[in-house]
């Protein structure tokens, strides 16, 4: 981990981690405004506010051509993997030029150009798909790896067992990440999860498990670097359990009234990953004006991009019938 007085590389890296988290937060704050104030985002969005350290810390350890599969709460992962935020905003607004042509929206956000093979609307479904992507990469003799991120709720679905077992049996180059925000929609995950939970289950299948404070981006990044290096060297799958907290409701419209009073506020005040990284950088001697600039730049960037996205037209009607299938395509099917 970086300490005050480390060389310029460490400082630059720590600043880059902050910048990415600020951009993710700004993106999602704009997305929430677009949903609630402007009614421009019509479908559900699942913000990752408070969880940005996982996205920023893990993605910095990857190459552009590495593979990522994420969840319904995937804006941060996608942005940190290198996707274009304008195309992402257009996708959330269902516009032409969205990264999925307006066909996927927030829950299916994807950018194959940067190896982001999709968020998923079905909890846990990406676990086997990510294992399979790693299987394909290994079969082709590639040195790329796959990262497969899911929530704590997903460990109670069957694909968790099937996917982890699969990856372990075939010694696949995949990093599984349980981004544990402690809540499964409106249910506290530990009240519906037997045994010791995610890490213990992964360990039972023989995966090396690393548990981190998922709100400490330096710790996440350091762990990810080591794990990714071992996986890329051919040592088989590993499991990262990152403990974090969902500061918002389950969706942008959820006021999360089911949570004990003060719980979210306490996390925001004491355990916010961005505030913590700012404090860390201040301790390193970074001036507060520089930190403010990073914040302001991220806010300005995302506000401008949302405006630009909102000025984009909807996709052509006939694209409702394209990219379904070649054989028996609805674009050709007529009697």
């Amino acid at each position, binding site marked *: 981990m970086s300490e005050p007085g480390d060389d310029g590389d460490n400082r630059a890296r720590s600043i880059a981690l902050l910048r990415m988290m600020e951009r993710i937060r700004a993106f999602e704050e704009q997305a929430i405004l677009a949903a609630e104030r402007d009614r421009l985002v019509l479908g559900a969005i699942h913000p990752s506010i408070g969880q940005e350290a996982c996205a920023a810390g893990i993605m910095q350890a990857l190459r552009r051509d590495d*593979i990522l*599969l994420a969840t319904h709460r995937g804006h941060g992962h996608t942005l940190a993997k290198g996707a274009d935020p304008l195309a992402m905003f257009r996708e959330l607004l269902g516009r032409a030029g*969205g*990264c*999925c*042509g*307006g*066909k*996927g929206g927030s829950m*299916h956000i*994807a*950018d*194959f150009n940067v190896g982001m*093979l*999709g968020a*998923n*609307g*079905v909890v846990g*479904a990406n*676990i*086997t*798909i*990510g*294992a*399979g*992507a*790693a*299987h*394909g*990469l290994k*079969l*082709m003799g590639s040195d790329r790896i*796959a990262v497969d991120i899911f929530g704590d709720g997903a460990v109670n679905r*069957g*694909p968790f067992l*099937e*996917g982890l*077992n*699969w990856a372990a*049996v*075939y010694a696949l180059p995949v990093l599984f990440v349980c981004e544990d925000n402690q809540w499964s929609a409106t249910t506290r995950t530990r009240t519906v999860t037997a045994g010791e939970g995610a890490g213990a289950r992964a360990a039972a299948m023989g995966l090396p498990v690393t548990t981190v404070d998922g709100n400490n981006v330096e710790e996440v990044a350091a762990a990810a670097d080591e794990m990714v290096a071992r996986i890329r060297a051919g040592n088989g799958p590993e499991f990262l359990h990152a403990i974090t907290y969902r500061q918002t409701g389950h969706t942008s419209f959820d006021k999360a009234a089911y949570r004990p009073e003060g719980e979210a506020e306490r996390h925001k005040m004491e355990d916010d990953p961005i505030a913590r990284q700012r404090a860390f950088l201040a301790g390193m001697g970074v001036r507060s004006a520089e930190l403010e600039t990073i914040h302001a730049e991220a806010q300005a960037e995302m506000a401008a991009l949302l405006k630009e996205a909102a000025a984009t037209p909807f996709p052509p009607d006939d694209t409702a019938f*394209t*990219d*379904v*299938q*070649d*054989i*028996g395509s*609805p674009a050709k*099917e007529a*009697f």
Partner: protein
Amino acid sequence: MAEKMTYVEASREALREAMQADETVWCLGEDLGRGSVFGQYLGLQEAFGPDRVVDTPISEAAIMGAALGAAMVGTRPVVEMRFSDFALCATDELVNQIAKARFMFGGQSRAAMVIRKPTGMWRSSAAQHSQSLESWYTHIPGLVVVCPSTPQDNYSLMKAAIAADDPVVYFEHKNIWGMEGEVDRSLAVEIGKAAIRRVGEDVTIVSWSDTANLAEQAGARLAEEGISAEVIDLRSLWPWDKAAVRASVAKTGRLIVAHESVRVGGFGGEVAATIAEAVPGARIRRLGAPRSLIAYAPNLEDQMRVTVDMIAQAAREMTND
């Protein structure tokens, strides 16, 4: 040049050739190293090694989901589900993930793969090893549905399915693995083109999978009685050859659709409705299993069958008045 092959050998040869020609083609499923349950993969692991003919855990969801991930990074998996019944354990992976992977991501992805599902009644296998569920998959946009009924078609359609960039759900009928026939390796079959098994004037009989073989026998029997039946084997249900069926019914004025699956909600209803709209005045009958379950005892199992007699009798009744 045609060779004698069985139905099971035919698709195995098609797979072998595809794997030889393209090293991104591989297969995964339970017990493939021992050829799988019906010998569909015999000798392939010896020929291509355990990395390309993969023995998997009994994890249908992972087999299907992993195949999608592997397809998205550029390989062409052939998925073995062992019995079509067990594929239900991987329904989310097939219906929500594979079928939608291309559209949902705006065309960034393809899910080029073949999903093999041995189907149908076979030797007292009872309710969980006998079903014909092909109509379910015709309802899912994104999927191609293929139901070969002869060795030649099982060869040519398997080759077409592996070559396709779409996910192809491929139903092989368990009752005809040993069926022998001439196979011409140079013969290509386009998915979506029906086979006219018998040309006729009085009544059109449409079917697929093993029931198409029964329909052909019914056609021969009817010919002896002076009834000229046109027998059409659809070979694929999505897409299905509407043009061939419409042209035939426009000529005969009568349509029988026969299938092994339950009549209620069966694909015969789709064929019947489409033709009723397209050929006004056509007389139409559907034959399918009663809406009950397939039992173990042979006499009970037989209650679920559409037989040669039933098809011929329906044709007699329709041409009588």
